[in-house]
């Protein structure tokens, strides 16, 4: 139901706010010191928008609202990237108020592919994709193995976390950090980190609320 979706978005938003400085500091090392500021600005605006939606709005509309708000308020590369991700996921949730496991996998894949297309990027380039692609795969495998949503999200989070760690070992070839060449080595990618934070917030939210897909 949309109020669950909105509550999940709210949980994500809170997690982003809490990590505002952390994300900005990560971006200071290999970027322009704004990732936390960008994401917080975006999700603050998202919260206002989704809370203004009529009750019983379908999940597609909620996610579309998130996506449209992110592309217009985040400001940095993460805006069109995450915005596109939410818009692509939204397209698969049009008119639905309850997400099935198959749809959940498709949505996460569509979101990840949206970022790949928008960013013309792939794994190994020290971006959010290094967290999202493995997370997406782990989630899909979990669903295929008929694990619970909470279990699958836990697997996705583990994979995303490893992805974040992996970004420390590689050189950025996309985004601003690529200006630094080898000097980007040793630092974790801010966008991969925010992806992990959002997935973790979603996983925790689902666990606390005993949510399940069917």
């Amino acid at each position: 139901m949309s109020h669950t979706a909105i509550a999940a978005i709210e949980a994500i938003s809170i997690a982003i706010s809490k990590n505002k400085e952390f994300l900005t500091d990560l971006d200071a090392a290999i970027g322009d010191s704004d990732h936390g500021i960008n994401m917080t600005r975006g999700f603050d605006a998202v919260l206002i928008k989704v809370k203004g939606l009529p009750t019983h709005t379908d999940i597609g509309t909620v996610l579309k609202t998130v996506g449209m708000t992110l592309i217009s308020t985040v400001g940095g590369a993460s805006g069109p990237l995450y915005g596109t991700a939410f818009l692509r996921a939204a397209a698969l949730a049009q008119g639905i108020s309850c997400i099935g496991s198959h749809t959940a996998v498709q949505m996460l894949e569509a979101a990840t592919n949206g970022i790949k297309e928008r960013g013309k990027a792939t794994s190994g380039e020290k971006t959010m994709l290094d967290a999202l692609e493995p997370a997406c795969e782990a989630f899909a495998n979990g669903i295929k193995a008929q694990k619970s949503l909470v279990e699958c999200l836990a697997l996705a989070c583990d994979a995303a976390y490893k992805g974040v760690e992996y970004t420390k070992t590689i050189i950025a070839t996309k985004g601003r950090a690529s200006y630094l060449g080898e000097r980007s080595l040793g630092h974790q990618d801010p966008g991969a980190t925010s992806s992990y934070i959002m997935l973790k917030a979603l996983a925790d939210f689902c666990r606390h609320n005993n949510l399940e897909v069917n």
Partner: protein
Amino acid sequence: MVGIVIVSHSAKIAEGIRDMAAQMARKGQKIIAAGGTTDGDIGTDAVKIYEAIKTADDGSGVVIMVDLGSAILSTETALELLEEDLRNRVKIADAPVLEGSIGAVVQASLGGPLSEVLATAEDARELRKR
């Protein structure tokens, strides 16, 4: 006349380029600045860019000038929001944002079609400073 949209992370830059380019423009030439975030910070806004494209088009199409990486991402996101008809006559120039904007505006003001305005914008890559 082909419209020009100037996308920059900075509102000041987008407006400054618009002002500079306007000096070389004929009356009626549309040059729309789409820079910065809504709250005046440094960044880009796909919805602002989308609105700018719609304002810039008079049916002859629009050439979009962009500054850095994420401006391209926002602009491509904006294109996705356009109806197909308009999207088909909108081009992102592969050119330096300031230098290309001046060339694009001159060519657009001469009444050149979309393809020529785009080509002139992109010729700015060959501009030498020494």
